[in-house]
């Protein structure tokens, strides 16, 4: 069974020629018939699919469309062209603690963050202790998040996110942060997800990570697929290409 199926996907962005956009300038521009913007495709003609339980590594330079792809799959953007299909519940580790409010305590934020991720109060209450112990913030859980260190905030965010029960998990470079010990915990958690048959899409700049964990690697450049296939082969090609691209600079 296919867990994720992406067909001919395209996302476009508009670059407005005006710096500050206001009702006033728009009114003037319309009168002068100069209301204009340039449209460019952040992602185009992207098609691929993933079998259930597999892990896909996504690589590419900055601005190649990796994050746009995950944003479409998590529902943040809706496709401007083409379509995609996901079987099951999606959970995204795109930005940890994005829903945290600095004035609320860790405890209140867990409930709020869980609600943003689509969990009911009961579901969150059942997981609450696990979330707190995994994050390791300990007794700080009842102080406002604004008093947390950035590491603590991150760990709490990650902890909330991984205690969801997704069928498909989207991970955007979040593993690059956090200390060694916490990273180890994260990899262990990912292993656990894989054993449960969760499909994972992972953006990474770490080729070893991709080679070790993924069955397939997708290389994006300028919004198009450059290559897709066996990780070792694709990452080698990508690194070779990066070297030549560097020379061009």
């Amino acid at each position, binding site marked *: 069974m296919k867990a994720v199926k992406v067909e001919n996907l395209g996302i476009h962005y508009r670059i407005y020629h005006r710096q500050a956009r206001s009702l006033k300038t728009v009114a003037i521009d319309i009168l002068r018939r100069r209301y204009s913007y340039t449209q460019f495709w952040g992602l185009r003609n992207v098609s691929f699919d993933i079998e259930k339980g597999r892990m896909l590594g996504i690589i590419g330079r900055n601005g190649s469309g990796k994050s746009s792809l995950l944003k479409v799959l998590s529902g943040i953007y809706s496709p401007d062209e083409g379509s995609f299909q996901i079987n099951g519940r999606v959970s995204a580790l795109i930005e940890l603690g994005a829903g945290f409010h600095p004035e609320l305590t860790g405890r209140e934020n867990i409930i709020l963050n869980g609600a*943003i991720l689509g969990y009911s109060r009961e579901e969150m209450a059942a997981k609450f202790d696990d979330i707190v112990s995994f994050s390791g913030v300990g007794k700080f859980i009842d102080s406002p998040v604004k008093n947390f260190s950035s590491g603590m905030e991150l760990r709490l965010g990650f902890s909330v996110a991984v205690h969801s029960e997704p069928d498909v998990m989207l991970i955007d470079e979040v593993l690059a942060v956090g200390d060694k010990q916490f990273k180890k915990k994260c990899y262990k958690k990912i292993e656990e997800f894989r054993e449960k048959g969760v499909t994972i899409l992972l953006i990474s700049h770490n080729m070893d990570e991709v080679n070790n964990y993924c069955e397939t690697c997708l290389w994006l450049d300028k919004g198009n697929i450059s290559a897709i296939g066996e990780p070792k082969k694709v990452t080698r090609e990508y690194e070779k290409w990066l070297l030549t691209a560097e020379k061009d600079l």
Partner: protein
Amino acid sequence: MIKHIRQIIRFRELLKNFVVRDLKLKYKNSILGYFWSLLDPLLTMLLFMVVFSVFMKINVENYPVFLITGILPWNFLQMSLNGSLMSLVQSRQLIRKIYFPRQLLPYSVVITYLVNLLLSFLVLIPILIYYKIPVTLNVLYLPLAVTLLTLIALGLSLFLSALFVFFYDTLYASNSFIRLWFYLSPIIYPVATVPEAFRNVYMLNPITPIICLFRTGFLGTEPPALIFIVYSIVVALLAFITGAWFFHKAENNMVKII
């Protein structure tokens, strides 16, 4: 439109969380939070009382009660619009990073102030007793008035919050508009002071009949003519539907540029 409502029902837990968060933040660090939120309308009432009944000697029966029954619903509308205008931009981190129905943000602002409005009605009780105003069956008009005003607040909030993402001067435009709207609504003066010749044009303001309905409910005065009530219902529904339509029309681009 059906999707708009269905998303809200599906994410009602989150909406509740947002409202609870807003109420908590509003009243946090002050046990007197609720009383602070009452102080402002009471001060406004006092101010207008002095200006209009002492200085200008306006002749309205029970003028203080008349004032407060107009100021409370007006404050709800005004604060809802001001609050929700920024609601999307203030949560841009969230919108960029996680999917959830974005209309929940302006909704939560309006609902927070709606709770505030209903709580502030409690302060009316001692005032009504003091002025010996009897409770009549007209109280039954109140739920209608609250519903219509909420629909208008929601429609405009959806519209303004989305527009503000695109154009920063929406803020100035809406501030001027709200100020004009205040003086064109029967908050500090009764409809009867408007000259007959302009009366029909004046009643085109959809919140005029609604404010009158609030007074009918609390003061037991005559309700506005049925035709005006029907007109308000139609406009309130239209405002809500148009606001939601605009919001979703703009949503895809909004998320990219926010």
